[in-house]
């Protein structure tokens, strides 16, 4: 692990202790069993807000603590370890980043203090089909003298059922598939013409489909430039990818640790099963994947904080490598635990289901391989 600053190691300790003591995987199980439609429980969310993590990225004058993405990554990794379900990622990282990257002063003043306090949830509505394809945006916009009218749909919107506002990526010109012609709007979830349908997904987290029918948006709702927001969207998506990769790394590391304990305690043929080379070598190979994924995640977060040119390539690398490791680890967690791993009573299923949902969000491994290699001119 990279050398942490004093602030980061304090936050890490705090996040580790809180999630272990107050919000362990058992808490997630309770939430799932209770069938909460929102995909998180209010008490957990209030705790997170009370500790100030909701304001990590937000400047002090707007109610936050103005820290960086590497620091947020440390907290998200700990959340990932215990599968803590909350809008922290969707709102305090993605929603806040949209405003920080593209918001006007008025928009920031209006929304960021609420996001920092955990009172307002702002989330990104980007995808329209089963796969992440940001340039494929079709949601139609008609321009009028006093603003815009949005018609179309969005799907798999994180925390869509509990959001107070949506950052909506929409098409103001061109065709789906064009990078030009995309505009971002910030629209309150109670605007006329928006309907929200919650989705029940395998990972039990909050997702929703949105329908926009003739939703009016004034010129003051535009984030960034009209017709020219693809770069802004891409920068925002990269922050989302790196942050989610940090959470995924935490989830996978926890799956690794729990599996390693099992290899050291489960006995068959009169010996611990970890003494069999077929399992020991797999564990050692997974250890390599874990170290590699960590290097990529830390490099991506650092690149964002440094404003490096390598942000796109490193964020694709981080999302892909964290995704590959989490994918394999969540499978091997079940396989190495044998039958018990298949039971709902055991936690491995939660890791597996969360793994696939997080892999798919903001581009899976295949998406990021294509995005990565396109930088090399082939």
């Amino acid at each position, binding site marked *: 692990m*990279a*050398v942490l600053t004093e602030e980061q190691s304090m936050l890490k300790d705090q996040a580790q202790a809180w999630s272990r003591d107050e919000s362990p995987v058992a808490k997630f199980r309770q939430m799932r069993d209770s069938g909460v439609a929102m995909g998180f429980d209010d008490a957990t969310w209030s705790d997170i807000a009370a500790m100030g993590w909701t304001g990590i990225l937000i400047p002090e004058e707007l109610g936050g603590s103005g820290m960086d993405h590497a620091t947020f990554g440390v907290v998200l990794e700990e959340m990932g370890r215990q599968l803590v379900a909350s809008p922290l990622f969707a709102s305090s990282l993605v929603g806040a980043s949209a405003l920080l990257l593209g918001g006007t002063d008025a928009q920031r003043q209006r929304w960021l203090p609420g996001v920092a306090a955990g009172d307002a949830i702002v989330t990104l509505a980007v995808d329209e089909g089963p796969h992440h394809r940001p340039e494929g945006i079709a949601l139609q916009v008609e321009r009028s003298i006093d603003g815009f009218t949005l018609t179309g749909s969005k799907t798999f919107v994180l925390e869509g059922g509990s959001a107070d506002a949506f950052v909506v990526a929409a098409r103001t010109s061109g065709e789906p598939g064009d990078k030009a012609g995309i505009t971002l709007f910030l629209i309150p979830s109670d605007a006329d013409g928006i309907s929200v349908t919650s989705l029940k997904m395998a990972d039990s987290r909050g997702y929703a489909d949105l329908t926009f029918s003739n939703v009016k948006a004034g010129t003051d709702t535009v984030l960034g430039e009209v017709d020219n927001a693809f770069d802004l969207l891409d920068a925002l998506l990269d922050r989302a990818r790196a942050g989610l990769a940090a959470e995924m790394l935490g989830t996978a590391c926890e799956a690794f640790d729990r599996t*390693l304990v099992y*290899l*050291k305690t489960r006995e068959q043929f009169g*010996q*611990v099963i*970890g*003494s*069999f*080379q077929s399992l*020991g*070598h797999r*564990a*050692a*190979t997974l*250890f*390599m994947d874990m*170290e*590699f*994924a*960590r*290097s*990529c995640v*830390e*490099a991506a977060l650092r690149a964002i904080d440094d404003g490096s040119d390598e942000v796109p390539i490193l964020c694709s*690398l981080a999302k*892909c*490598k964290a995704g590959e490791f989490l994918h394999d680890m969540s499978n091997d967690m079940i396989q190495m635990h044998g039958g018990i791993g298949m039971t709902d009573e055991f936690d491995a299923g939660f890791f597996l289901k969360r793994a696939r949902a997080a892999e798919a969000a903001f581009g899976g491994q*295949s998406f990021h*391989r*294509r995005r*990565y*290699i*396109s930088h*090399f*001119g*082939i």
Partner: protein
Amino acid sequence: MSSENRQDSFREEARRWLTENFPATLAHQRPPGIAGFGAKFRGDWKVWQSNLGEKGWSAPTWPAEFGGGGLTPQEARVLAEEMAAIGAISPIGGFGIMMWGPTLLDVGTEEQKQRYLPPIIRGDIHWCQGYSEPGAGSDLANLQSFAEDKGDHFILNGSKVWTSGALEADWMYGVFRTDRNNKYEGISFLTLDMKSPGVEVKPITLISGQSPFNEVFFNDVVIPKEDLIGEKNQGWNIGKRLLLHERQGIAGSGGGSVIGGSYDLEKVARDYIGLEDGKLADGAMRERIAMQKMFAHAYALTRHRFGDEAAVHGPSPAVGIMKVAWARDNQNREELLIEMLGNRGLGWEGAGFSDKELLTVRTWLRSKANSIEGGTTEINLNLVAKRVLGLKGY
């Protein structure tokens, strides 16, 4: 001065020194012969070798009192970046720089460091490593070459195998049996002059047609007691320590073939497969190239991170995974290259093939040793399972 300012000012210093001391004719050239295995340089290479060696930047982080560069790890990285930027490759390398020197710095006496280190740094004495034997590969401690104690000297009989660069080397360090009744506590770490009477070297031809490895036979070779490193019968720990440096060195050497010269993947893809609408015409191959490049990238980032950590804590058994990754990286890349070259990818010799094509074939074949040399992939996974993960039975 902040550490960043210090690095910036060192960068200036390194740049200036390189401008004055690196012959521009050598930019992006690899040293002739096998670097560090005894190449005796001439002309500009000789100039570059002696400039670099005198400055101590062939061993940038070794203490200046022994002729090393005395640089911090951060400065050494800056130096490496500046050298890479102008295509300056050090002609001083091999076992002395990568393993023997670092081990001596850990375990050597003051006198031994003064004796052995300066000629390594200057590139004057080239070392080979006497480890593997016909019956001692992965089970290295089963080695049988016997050094009999004769009071003020040893008499050595036996043989070593897979000895890289033995034909060119001036000296050998290695592990030898000094007590037949104790497997691990019967091994001593010795150095010997390769010109000693009774030393015979026979090259081994590999599947690549090349002979980078040798057999070395010892017939009543006299080794003075001053060439014993550490205590008699306590050489196994030094030998293992050195292997850690070997893996660290291999892990730290970055992607790329050990003998070099292979193409980059994008160029071969463009030249031999071609693009359609700006993308590689073979979509399946495009994804495999992406995966290979991403693995190499992740490996490089991890190498940096482990390097930073090793600078603080010393080499860690976790570098075992870097050795495994290095082999996988090399072998996958070479396989992709051969596959992309298609029918031109298996030419053996002659004018029908370009030099690069022919070299790629040999490099591909040579890369098969990467998961065997320096500890097999399986042995390294055992070590990681045992020492890093704490699993029993390895």
